[in-house]
């Protein structure tokens, strides 16, 4: 589950915390954050290898252990240096960059990684399709080769940042005559290319946090193919694994996250308390504390380089917990639970599961068990990969995609 290359002492190429601190000191001496323009500063930081410690020299890194990046980040933050607003460019940082690093050509790495990291170019992900759902590999978006370019037609959905993105990572079907997992190819798609249409997708909360993306005759140069033709499913697996590693990254304090507001309402509004709700609040408080400890334990495992299967369950646990707590909070609020802040369709820049009012949190939390792998799929994964139970009988693995029942 981890891509961490481990190590806490001096690691690859002789890098240790002290060496990193020294490199940061030198860099800051040359680029005073107080007087350097933000983009210029970030570009220089990338060039100094202080973007991703574990990336190669010349591509934003030092070839050092991944864990040393935290040392650099802390030093730079202490010096008042600007960061690259990682929440805004999460898909690029968390999904596109590691995939490009692993499967990209030298030219692709050279072209894409620097503006990705500095935030000059925002990335989005064109994986999900309306018809595919959890069966991502059944995707229908077609890419047909035309000389040195590919012509792409299809529809993608649940794409956050599509309306601000410069680039997308895209998977499309290039060979319908082979089984579904084998006929997919992975591309980098220019979101400004003709034929790319982005429409906001309004959701249950009233917001349009995501988009639908329609691709009509979009031309992608073969030079923007990532990995081999037909190898896109394997490349995508690397992307998705990086998505899941991201979970459990931010340690919560006790009574942090969704339980915080419910507990605060209980304390601040004694008139809402009932005997019936009291024990339910405490049950949820206990569950929240236990889930927090579970995530903390996973982080401790990663920190000592001994990841276990426990990470697989974190998203499952938090999804259900967030839903139960937010549902409880609406009930606790009683009359105030009948209200909603605002149904106006907006396109939020960032999403805060714990923000806005209780009704929003309740509705938004419904997505936690669907987005990024449904709870049903996660239970299958735990049952099969962790517990070793046999897979269900399947008959879609050896059939040509075009012959699958629809």
């Amino acid at each position, binding site marked *: 589950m981890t891509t961490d290359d481990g190590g806490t002492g001096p690691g690859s190429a002789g890098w240790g915390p002290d060496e990193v601190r020294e490199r940061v000191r030198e860099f800051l001496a040359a680029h005073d954050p107080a007087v350097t323009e933000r983009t210029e500063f970030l570009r220089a930081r990338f060039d100094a290898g202080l973007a991703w410690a574990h990336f190669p020299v010349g591509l934003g890194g030092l070839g050092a252990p991944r864990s040393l990046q935290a040392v650099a980040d802390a030093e730079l933050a202490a010096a008042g240096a600007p960061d690259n607003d990682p929440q805004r460019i999460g898909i690029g940082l968390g999904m596109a960059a590691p995939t490009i690093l692993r499967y990209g050509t030298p030219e692709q790495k050279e072209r894409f990684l620097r503006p990705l990291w500095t935030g000059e170019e925002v990335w989005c992900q064109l994986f*999900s399709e*309306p018809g*595919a*759902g*959890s*069966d991502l590999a*059944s995707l229908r978006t077609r890419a047909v080769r035309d000389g040195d370019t590919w012509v792409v037609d299809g529809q993608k*959905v*649940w794409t956050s940042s599509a309306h601000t993105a410069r680039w997308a990572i895209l998977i499309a079907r290039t060979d319908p005559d082979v089984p579904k997992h084998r006929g997919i190819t992975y591309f980098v798609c220019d979101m400004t290319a003709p034929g790319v249409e982005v429409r906001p*997708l*309004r*959701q*249950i909360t*009233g917001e349009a946090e995501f988009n639908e993306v329609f691709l009509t005759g979009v031309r992608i140069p073969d030079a923007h193919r990532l990995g081999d033709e037909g190898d896109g499913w394997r490349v995508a697996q690397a992307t998705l694994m990086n998505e899941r590693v991201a979970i459990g990254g931010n340690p919560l304090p006790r009574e942090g996250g969704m339980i915080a507001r419910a507990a605060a309402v209980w304390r601040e509004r004694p008139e809402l308390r*009932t*005997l*019936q*709700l009291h024990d339910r609040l405490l049950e949820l408080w206990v569950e929240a504390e236990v889930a927090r400890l579970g995530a903390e334990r996973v982080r401790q495992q990663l920190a000592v380089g001994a990841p276990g299967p426990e990470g697989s369950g974190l998203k499952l646990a938090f999804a259900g917990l967030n*839903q139960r707590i937010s*549902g409880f909070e*609406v*009930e606790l609020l*009683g*009359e105030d*639970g*009948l*209200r*909603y*802040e*605002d*149904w106006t369709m907006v396109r939020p820049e960032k999403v805060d599961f714990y923000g806005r009012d209780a*009704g929003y949190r*309740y*509705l938004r939390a*419904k*997505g936690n*068990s*669907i*987005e990024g792998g*449904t*709870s*049903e799929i996660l*239970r299958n994964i735990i049952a099969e990969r962790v517990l070793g139970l046999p897979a*269900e009988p*399947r*008959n*879609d693995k050896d*059939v040509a995609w075009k012959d*699958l*029942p*629809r």
Partner: protein
Amino acid sequence: MTGSPDLLYSDVEDDLRAAVRDVLADHCPPAAVLARCESAQPYDMALYRRLAADLGLAGLTVPEQAGGQGASARELAVVMEELGRAVAPVPFLGVAMATAVLAVADAPQTLKRIAAGELPAAVAVPLTTTPGAAFPAAVRAGADGALTGRVTSVADVSADGVLLVPATGPDGPGLFEVPVGAAGVRVEPVVSLDLTRPVAHVVFDGAAGRAVAGAGTAARALEAGLLAGAGLLASEQLGVAERCLEMTVAYLGERRQFARVVGSFQAVKHRLADLWQEVVSARAAARAAADALAVSSPDAPVAVSVAQAYCSRVAVHAAEECVQLHGGIGMTWEHPAHLYLKRAKADELALGTPGRHRALLAAAVRLPPPAPES
């Protein structure tokens, strides 16, 4: 069948259901409901008049000599099931509560107009009021019936309708009738979680109320309205739950993933089987409440609280499963699942949460809480 409530549907009730369902199928499809939510007038008053006047549903439980149909809460409950199935944006719960209030209070002309479907009505209490609650103190009445105060979160307030306002005056508690459009009445819209039954605050600033019940009957009349409302709401919740289950079963019976119909996956099947069992049980509970109200059984408060405590949860569970098992599409604004979820969640709060109804039961069936400090 000594003492057992009649839990079945009569032929008359089946016919009534078919008639209501026909109207709703024609005039209240999901797309229309969604469009209505986003309009300036969230209640569909044309649909209301079709149901209330043309089908005679507003006066269903009003005696014939008072201008109604002379039916009972059993039939009205069937209507509520259908309205729940359609998450119909009509102020029908308010009218049902108002007619129950006016069965005790005294306002024959008003009742006749309500029963004829001409006059939408609502009881001016917060939607979250629980049966058995103390008489509200939000509004004061002057000796001349002038009403002053503010009632929050009232459902089913129609611009051309009437309000039945519990207020306390020099002679004690009373119920007052006042048109929503009257001078001194101001309606403050509230952005509501439930898009299909929005609530509003109502401010009375010296509005002229006409007394319809005095100290002797006001509390009893109000309680009749709250109890009927809570009991009927259970049937609405049943309808919401049933429709959510149907939508989900239909979708999963068609949707394919991994080259299989999703509804053939056992984990999904078991969840839907459990949900079906809940819906079946909710039906028995809702029918028992409706029957107890229909025959004015002394057991009605227990039957209603049982139904509310149970059906509230089933409706929310069914709507939550509906969203989850539809996957991404169930999270979109265009799909009706969210309308059901919002209705179900608001219904859970309406007329007493499950916990408050369990607290009522604790007293009614002699299962008291521990003594303090134990």
